[in-house]
């Protein structure tokens, strides 16, 4: 699991692309897009240990 920066100078551009992908969508449509994206990224990563660790870490962090 990589938690240090792995995007280098492309971070801002990729974040902007992510926001663009959501442009014009309703909140429900955005959640659906996010769900599809997570499923696709999971397949792209293709490593069960990493995916399990990522799921656990994302759940661990509370934003409230």
């Amino acid at each position: 699991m990589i938690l240090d920066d792995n995007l280098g100078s492309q971070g801002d551009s990729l974040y902007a692309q992510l926001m663009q992908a959501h442009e014009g969508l309703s909140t429900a449509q955005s959640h659906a897009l996010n769900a599809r994206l997570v499923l696709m990224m999971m397949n792209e990563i293709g490593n069960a240990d990493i995916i399990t660790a990522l799921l656990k870490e994302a759940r661990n962090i509370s934003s409230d």
Partner: protein
Amino acid sequence: MAYDYAPFPYVAPPGLTTSEPRHPVAIVGAGPIGLAMAIDLAQHGIKSVVLDDNNVVSIGSRAICWAKRTLEIFDRLGIGSRVLDKGVTWKVGRLFHGADEVYSFDLLPEAGHKYPAFINLQQYYVEQYLVERSQELSDWIDLRFLNKVTDHRDHGDHVALTIETPDGPYTLEADYYVAAEGAGSPTRKRMDLPFEGQTFEEHFLIVDVELPHSPFETEDPERWFWFAPPFHQGQSALLHKQPDNIYRIDLQLGAETDPKTEATEEKVIPRIKAIIGDMDFRLDWMSVYKFRCAKLDQFVHNRVLFVGDSAHVVSPFGARGGNGGIQDVDNLGWKLAAVLNGAPTSLLDTYQQERSFGSAENILNSSRATNFMTPKSDIETLFRNETLALAAKHPFARKLINSGRLSQPCTLAGMDLQSGDHPLVGQALIDLPLGNGWLVEQAQGQFTLLTLDSQSWPDTVASLALPHTPVCGARYGTTGAFLIRPDGHICAYFETPDTAAITAALTRATGGHA
């Protein structure tokens, strides 16, 4: 102590009573960009007349964040050390989400550079130093306050200007006309040039306060940035220090606010108290603004040249307004001087090529920061808040938080004046300790060959031997030579002392055909 806005004297210009000889360059606007332009031209031996409708420095601190590259250009213009001595160099930045600190970072300056990443200094000091430097160069710079340009006509081989003064109107002519009047550029409006881009709806409030002691936990200057601060519901806020114990507070107000009622003491004082606590303070200046990101398509219109905010405007995040304008000056000064001395006018087209690219890059970066800081939908807010939540623990998310990416010089690689494909070609000079001083003090202002090894390099151009130190090796390597333009950008690299190749690169970099 409040800055003393002493007016500069108005002197009746000769054009009121007699016809003035044609000036090589008329610069419209004596802000930081116009003044820097006049100094740069003077240092290249070109005379200019600088016309300003006003007679004081900038009212209010306005542009306060001067980046390393700008400081290096100021060094060449003769005010770098003064700006550095007076300015505030901060090291610790803290980022908060709500009441909680997400993380802090230590911005230690990298060793082996004369100037730090940036300093904070009020625009009025920078303008004062530039005016004083211009006065030292009074054989070249004719500075005219209360001279308002009301009309101009490009006659093909010169520009005619009509100017209003307290003593009435007069006219003068100049070979070239440089518009450095700021975002509202009357020249741009007179020419009816499209100025297109994105307008942001959020209002921002800037307040300068003088405090009796530091609002931070230590006396060291810090920079505190809040997303959704507890004292200012749902918005963002920034607090940082300027010289003279003046602190800048930036508050995002939202789109629905009325600027007139927000910029009142009644509204502002409770907000300041919420940030700094219960201490006495003096309100020095405040301003409410909305901004947009826009640029001219063309900066060069025959004999009329646009620099700084006249040519392009950006959001303030990343400090790319003033810094971008100074880079315009740096890029244009030596080219305009060369054209006036007989170089092909096509050299001015490369100002358009290089700075239009640079300003588009600045607009892109500052728009992204604005978008991060002012999420437009629930989902954008969600992503931003979860980035902040992750950032408390994970470094990768800290890199995604965007409250402004500090102005960096753009690379000019692949553009017309550069030769070869060494990775450093196109980049701005990287500073180094050199002798008792610094590389930036010695390698700017004229074409210079920086030599790394003891091969016998030709003397077709001024050369400077770089030291055989580890820091130089890491920044430039150990063999060959780099050709540096007068604005400090690297335009060619040579492995061997090939005189023909060096001459060809030099010809190309000065607008000739290699």
